Structure formats: C-alpha cells, structure tokens
C-alpha cells in the first residue's frame, strides 16, 4: 500500500508542481525578452542621437579650428558621448559595459549600451560614441523572480482554496457513497439508499453498488433461508428415525448386542438432532427472530441457571463470584442460551475435581477452568471449527455464543494463562 494520500490531493500536487516548473522557466524567458527589448530600444535611441549629432556637426559647416573647439566642448558637456578623430571610416558597432559611474551617488556599477559610429567632417573621419544607461541584468532578474514567486504563492493559495471548494461540492456525492458503503452490514438486511445524482459517473457508481449489495443481500438471505428450511425439513425424518428406534427397543427378542447397537445409534442420532437444532437456532438468530430486548440482571440470571445446572454438575465445584452488579439490555432467550453454552462448555472440559470459576463484574463476565493446553482462538468460534473425535459436542456451541454476542454488540474473547482457559464476555459499558 505504501503512502496513502487523499484523492483530491493528487491533482493538487500535480498542478502545483506543474505551475512551479512553468513559472521557473518563465524567469529566464522574461529576463531575456525584457533585456532584448531594452537593448534594442537603447540602440535605437543611440542611433537617433548619433544621426542627429552627425547631421548637426556637418551642417555647422565651420572651419577646422571652430570644429575642433565645438568637438571639445561637446565632449566636455556630453559625458556619455565622445567625438574623436580616427584614421578611417568603419562600420557601426555596439558594445555593452559595466562601469563605475562617477555621477552615481552610491558609487555602484552601472550598465551602459554604447554605439560607435563614424562621420567624415572636412574630409577628416571621426568616430562618434553614444552611450545610454541600461537597467542592470541582476536587478531585472531579481525583480522578475520576486514577482514570479509572488504569483506562485497566489496560485498555490488559489489552488488549495479551489480544491477545497471543489471537494466539497463536486466530490460530495462520492464521499456520501463511501460513507454508505462503510456503514453497510450484510446481516442488517438493509439495502443502502443512495440519493439521486446529476453526475453520470456517480449515478452509475451508485447504481452498480446498489446492484452488488442487493445481490449480496439476496444471496445471504437465500443462504439463511436455506439453512432454516433444510433444518426444518430434517426434523421430521429425524423424528421418524427416532420413533422407529424407540419402537425397536420394545422388542422382547432383542439381544444385548443389538440393544447396544441401538443405543449407539440413539447417541449418534441425538448428536445429529442437536447439530440440526443448533443450526436452526443460528439461522433464527441471523434472521433476526429474537429482537425483543429487556433489562436483565446478570447475577440473578446466572444464579437461576446454576440452580438448574446443579442436578447435572453436582460433582463439579463451581465458584460463582459477583464482584459488581451487572445490568444489561438484551434478549432474554438469547442471553440464557449464551450463558448455558458458555457454562456447559466450561463444565464439559473441567475434570471432576477441578474448580470452575465464574466472575461477574459490572461490565464483563469471566468463565474460567483449568486446562492443559491452549485452544486455537481463531477456530474456536467458527462453526464446526472445534469439532473433533475428542469433542463430541455439536461444534456450534461457541459459534452460537459469538453470534449472540455480535447481535448485542458484546465482545467474546478467549485466553489461556496460568494453565487456565478463560472466556470473557465484555458487555457494552455504554
């Protein structure tokens, strides 16, 4: 399974990563474009200044002395331009430098874009340099990065907010469906009702789940009905066999051997009857045929049951301790069946001289007896999970206990400590 994230966080992460990459890529792109525009515009500006200067110098039409004076004056007044004589005319060129600017108060480096152009005045070639201050690259990049980060934060906040809103509205039906499925319980025999949905996918999902649930419910119902019907149908043939055996032993000519065979058949038949009876009981519990609940006082219930049992278990020692009164809301018949099964189970596996402990607390009942080895807890409460040649019970007693506990929201558990088996029923303390 690994790391689990919520469905809606997945696109959020993708969107966030994607927008981060796009914005990161945009930083150099913006920088390059802005710088190119800057340089282009400055070059154009330099060109214009240079052309105007050249034209004006030519138009002055002065003699050499006057010209030199004008150039010298120009060079003094215009620091970013420089006119000087050269040997020959050349093609125009541009340059880009970082230089300490004397006029800048903070004394930092400034960036300049320059144009070197040539002009011939009075048959003497001159070079004309025009410069203009350009925004420094690092300043541009800092500004762009800052703005990009700002926008990224705005995007992120927007994504999260939108995501929350979308999850609330768009995915609400999905989470509703999920809740319904979680609450679904096969044995409750209740079909989940989904609210109608305008979104096709959700409607299809709900329809499919409803179909699945109905299928499961009807299969489960049929299975329960089958168990109940099969058990019912078995009762009459069992009764016939039983009655025939009862008639057979009336025969005077029966030998001791035959009589023994009949008794053994009788025993096997009782076992079949009791398995059948218990299966029927389980089916009835599952089919919710024991719904009526009442307030039951556990200690008085147990006392009555122990009294009933007294005839059968006089040789065994039972210690019944009431640590606290225990009142439960439960079905009376089922509670009796559960207690009987639990007690008889313990009695059956207790040696004649061993002690059987029953302790009642306000929220739980503990039945424990001595034993030699631990039982398999996983199999213990399964139907026919514990049947073996050594245990001639119906194999259903403890699964009935479990079923009854499940019905009432109680918890039955088994543990083996200090060579004692103990079964604990924890009642709902709430």
């Amino acid at each position, binding site marked *: 399974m690994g790391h689990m994230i919520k469905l809606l966080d997945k696109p959020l992460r993708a969107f966030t990563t994607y927008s981060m990459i796009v914005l990161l890529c945009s930083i150099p792109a913006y920088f390059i474009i802005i710088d190119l525009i800057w340089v282009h515009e400055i070059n154009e500006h330099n060109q214009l200044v240079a052309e105007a200067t050249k034209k004006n110098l030519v138009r002055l039409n002065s003699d050499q002395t006057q010209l030199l004076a004008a150039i010298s004056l120009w060079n003094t007044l215009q620091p970013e331009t420089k006119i000087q004589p050269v040997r020959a005319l050349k093609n125009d060129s541009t340059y880009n430098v970082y230089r300490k600017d004397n006029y800048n108060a903070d004394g930092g480096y400034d960036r300049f874009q320059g144009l070197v152009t040539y002009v011939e005045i009075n048959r003497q070639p001159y070079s004309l340099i025009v410069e203009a201050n350009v925004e420094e690259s690092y300043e541009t990049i800092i500004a762009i990065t800052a703005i990009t980060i700002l926008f990224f934060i705005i995007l992120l906040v927007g994504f999260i907010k939108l995501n929350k809103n979308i999850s609330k509205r768009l995915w609400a039906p999905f989470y509703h469906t999920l809740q319904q499925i979680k609450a679904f319980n096969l044995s409750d025999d209740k079909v989940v009702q989904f609210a109608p949905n305008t979104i096709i996918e959700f409607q299809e999902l709900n329809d499919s789940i409803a179909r699945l649930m109905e299928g499961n419910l009807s299969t489960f119902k049929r299975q329960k009905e089958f168990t109940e019907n099969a058990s019912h149908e078995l009762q009459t043939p069992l009764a016939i066999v*039983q*009655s025939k055996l009862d*008639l057979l*032993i009336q025969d005077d000519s029966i030998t001791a051997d035959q009589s023994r065979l009949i008794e053994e058949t009788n025993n096997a038949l*009782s076992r079949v009857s009791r398995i059948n009876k218990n299966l029927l009981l389980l089916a009835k519990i599952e089919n919710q045929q024991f719904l009526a609940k009442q307030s039951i006082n556990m200690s008085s219930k147990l006392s009555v049951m122990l009294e009933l049992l007294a005839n059968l278990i006089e040789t065994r020692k039972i210690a019944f301790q009431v640590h606290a009164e225990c009142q439960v809301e439960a079905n009376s018949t089922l509670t009796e069946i559960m207690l009987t099964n639990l007690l008889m189970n313990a009695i059956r596996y207790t040696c004649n001289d061993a002690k059987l402990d029953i302790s009642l607390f306000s929220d739980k009942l503990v039945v424990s007896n001595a034993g030699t080895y631990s039982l398999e807890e996983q199999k213990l409460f399964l139907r026919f999970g514990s049947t073996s040649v050594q245990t001639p019970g119906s194999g259903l007693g403890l699964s009935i206990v479990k079923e009854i506990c499940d019905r009432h929201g109680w918890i039955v558990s088994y543990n083996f400590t200090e060579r004692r088996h103990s079964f604990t029923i924890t009642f709902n303390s709430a």
Partner: protein
Amino acid sequence: MKVLIIEDELQLAANMVSYLSGQNYVCELASDYSQALAKISSYRYDCILLDLMLPGGNGLSILEELKRLKKEDGVIIISAKNALEDKISGLELGADDYLAKPFHLSELSARVFSVIRRRSFANANIIQHGELTVNLPAKIVEVCGKTVVLTKKEFELLIFFIGNRGRVISKSAIAEHLSGDLADMLDSHDFIYAHVKNLKKKLSDAGCGSYLKTLYGNGYKWDI
C-alpha cells in the same frame, strides 16, 4: 383413553399409534386439515396430538376451532419448527404442551400421560400401583401408606417411568427428559444412573416392589 393424532407424516403417525396403543390408549389418526376438523367436531378426545404444519391448513386454526366449540380436549402441539412464536401462540390458544421434533416416543407418552392426568378430576390424579400411591398435584409418593421423600428429579423420573408403563425407555430419552435442552450439551448420560439408583433405593427401602428393571444396561422399564 382416546388420543387423536393429527399428523401428515404417516410413518411417524404410525409409530406414535403403535407406541401409544401399547400404553392402552385408543388412537385415531387424521392426516390432513379437513379430516382433523371433522374429527374434532364430532368426537371428544382425552388428548390431541397436533402437528402445526398440515396439508390444507394451519394447525393453529384447529386450536381456534376447538376453543370456538368450547371443547375441553387436551392438546399437545408437535412441531418441526420449534419456533418460539408458535409455542407462545399455541399455548395462548389453549394448548397444554409443546413438543418439538424430533422427540422420543417415551417423552411423547409421558406428556400425554401428564396432560390427561392434569385435566382429570382429583381422584384420577392419584395413581395407585399396588403398594405405591402417587398423588400428582401434591407431588406426594407413598408406599404402604408411608410417605417417601423424593427429590424433584426423582419424582419427575418416577412419573416418566409410570407414564411409560411396560415400555423400554432408552437412556438418551431419560437424559433428555430430565435435562431438557441441556442434554444437548452433556456428552455423558452418567448423571442418570445416580438419579435412577437413588429412586430405586428409596422405593425399595420403603418396601416397594422392584418394578423398575434395568435392561442390558442400556434402558429401563417400569413393569407392573
């Protein structure tokens, strides 16, 4: 004593007739709803054994009909369903007892015996077997006029034997009779020995003849 058996499963009905006839009951059989209805309206029975699931109708309606006719017949419901609601509604409609399938014929016979005795007049409630006298409502047992003190289980056992007079009763039938549903849980029926032994001893100590016979070590018979 007349017993009407309303049961559609003919084999079972035949076995019931066979067993009960040996107990000196006169048995009649109705195998469907209309037959049953015809018989109950025409005759009077000491006890009616009523199967609830009948071809042609529900056994509970027969109970209602008996009530409508103001008949005093004793009724034992015999059902494969063993459903609590059926039991409760059956008893509310005036049935005397309820027996779930499968059952031992000896159990059936004992129930018929006690239903008939319960509905009889006071003098019929006292069973006289030679030197043994059993007062059913007072639960008093006397041998040659001397009271024998029996435990509840021993008394139940004695009535069970008397109700199955001359019949062999299997150990498992006794176990089920004494412990009810709890017999399901017991692997050994040894506890019966103790009760039977005590009963036998108390009766013979009081000078009662040994009517209770052990057969092949597997069953018992009350012979008189």
